[in-house]
């Protein structure tokens, strides 16, 4: 198979290949241009956008753990107005899918961002971040309670025609129920997983290593948990899934796709190597060619449970 078909889809969103950047790990995507042509990616998921600009959390915001990274950025971003004025026009010129990550402290804040984004060209979908562990109000509360999560998604659904990706929190007892509820409420896709809530302590000062005490754990450490959740949700619901969490290599991405992800998001890997998303896309292509698999769609959810 010389030219396997990398194209894939996440519900209504068509993608030229299954590799996206994860929200908050590649800025607005534009920052990767010095390293490669970002039109080579399936898409870009932007840093979270909130109604007003946010300065984010006090430092320290980062702590490295074994094969993992704890972060507590606190949704620092330029705000809706600046996103529309300064950033979206640049993204519109690039031939790749742009998915805007939306966050807020209250339902109204989510809705304000969604309405502000409405009617703009060049937005392939919205990723509704109901799972950020680093914001005091809102954020995680919406995601961990299936009822609240569904209520929010329902309102967002009513407010926009963009395809909706609900980004769920992994810090829950039953990810399947939440996934089911947000799909019933009108989401087209679920995004799994956001960071695991974690903590580290400096034993010399006895202080937490992050100013906000706890933070979100990403990187290879969390991959087994992320894969398990993608697998559980796919087996139970067979819905479109944007999978991610600890993807560093093409093989990692393939694990997610085999478990049922229609596309994958690459985050922390970018910090080791800004070209990681491109290398992963190319690696997936080689795998398909080597194994004589016609296209990525043949692989999605093809786990052999016999």
């Amino acid at each position, binding site marked *: 198979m010389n030219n396997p078909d990398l194209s894939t889809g996440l519900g209504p969103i068509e993608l030229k290949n299954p590799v996206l950047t994860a929200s908050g790990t590649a800025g607005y995507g534009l920052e990767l241009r010095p390293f490669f042509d970002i039109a080579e990616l399936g898409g870009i998921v932007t840093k979270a956008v909130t109604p007003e600009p946010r300065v984010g959390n006090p430092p*320290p915001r980062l702590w490295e753990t074994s094969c993992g990274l704890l972060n507590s950025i606190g949704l620092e971003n330029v705000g809706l107005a600046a996103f529309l004025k300064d950033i979206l026009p640049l993204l519109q010129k690039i031939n790749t899918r742009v998915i805007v990550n939306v966050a807020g402290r209250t339902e109204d804040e989510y809705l304000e961002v969604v309405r502000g984004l409405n009617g703009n060209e060049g937005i392939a979908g919205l990723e509704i971040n109901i799972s950020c562990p680093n914001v005091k109000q809102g954020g995680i509360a919406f995601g961990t309670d299936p009822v609240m999560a569904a209520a929010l998604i329902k309102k967002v659904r009513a407010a926009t025609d963009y395809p909706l990706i609900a980004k769920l929190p992994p810090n829950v007892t039953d990810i399947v129920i939440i996934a089911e509820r947000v799909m019933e409420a009108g989401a087209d896709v679920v995004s799994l997983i956001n960071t695991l809530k974690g903590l580290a302590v400096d034993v010399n000062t006895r202080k937490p290593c992050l100013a906000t005490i706890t933070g979100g754990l990403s990187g290879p450490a969390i991959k087994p948990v992320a894969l398990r959740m993608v697998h559980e949700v796919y087996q139970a619901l067979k819905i479109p899934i944007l999978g991610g969490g600890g993807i560093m290599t093409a093989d990692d991405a393939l694990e997610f796709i085999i478990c049922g992800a229609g596309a994958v998001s690459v985050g922390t890997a*970018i910090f080791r190597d800004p070209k990681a998303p491109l290398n992963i896309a190319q690696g997936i292509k080689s795998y398909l060619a080597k194994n004589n698999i016609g296209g990525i769609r043949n692989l999605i959810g093809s786990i052999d449970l016999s």
Partner: protein
Amino acid sequence: MLAEQAKILENRDRGAGVFLLKLGSPLVARQARVGQFVQLLISENYDPLLRRPFCFYNIDQDNGQIEVLYQVVGTGTELLSRKKAGEKLSVFGPLGRGFEIEPDLESAILIGGGIGWAALNKIHHKLALRDIHYVPFFGARDLGFYQAIGAGEVIPIPPGNIATDDGSYGYHGFITELVEAKINEEFHFSKPTIFACGPNPMLKAVQALAGKYDLKAQISLEARMACGFGVCLGCAVKKAHGEGYFKVCHDGPVFNADEVELSKI
């Protein structure tokens, strides 16, 4: 700003836990400027997961080489210290905003604290050769560390401008105390620009000095980093004026002393 597989030409133990790493990295060397830094990928596995930031101790554009002077403090630097000449190392850089040496600079003070000297070494060489009133200072924990860093090796630092925490060499006390004395003695007619790199308490003292004597000061900061090129928003340092945070990797690591709030970093 690019990633390059560099070749380790030398990784020399200088004693006191300090090592000098010389890399063949022509593409990075070509773009590098004083005060900028690189991110080194120390492990091909994921522990440590992130690259580690180091500034340019030396840049040799003609030979396509860069040097990094580093101190072993944890897992990453420990692993780095065991690498041998001939091995490869992924270098990502040059990154950030370096020192600005204005062409009409009249006088300058250099203040290096501990391994922070690494960021200043190249500027020391440059300024020493210029026809200006230039005074370097260096502080370290003890004589052994002073020797390992080799601050005054190629171009000497006057012994009176050296301080150690334990008094084993030079002045017994903080380097900024020496600096202040010198400002009072020597700089009556010109306002020197300060270039400084060192531990946070030293930089705070430099901020205070610069404020008191109304001097320009460029200080090079450190922060925990993930990406090193502005996408993770992790390496925040509070802005002194207005709300919000600079990113050390992108807006720095060199800042004007009055731009940043060092109480928390």
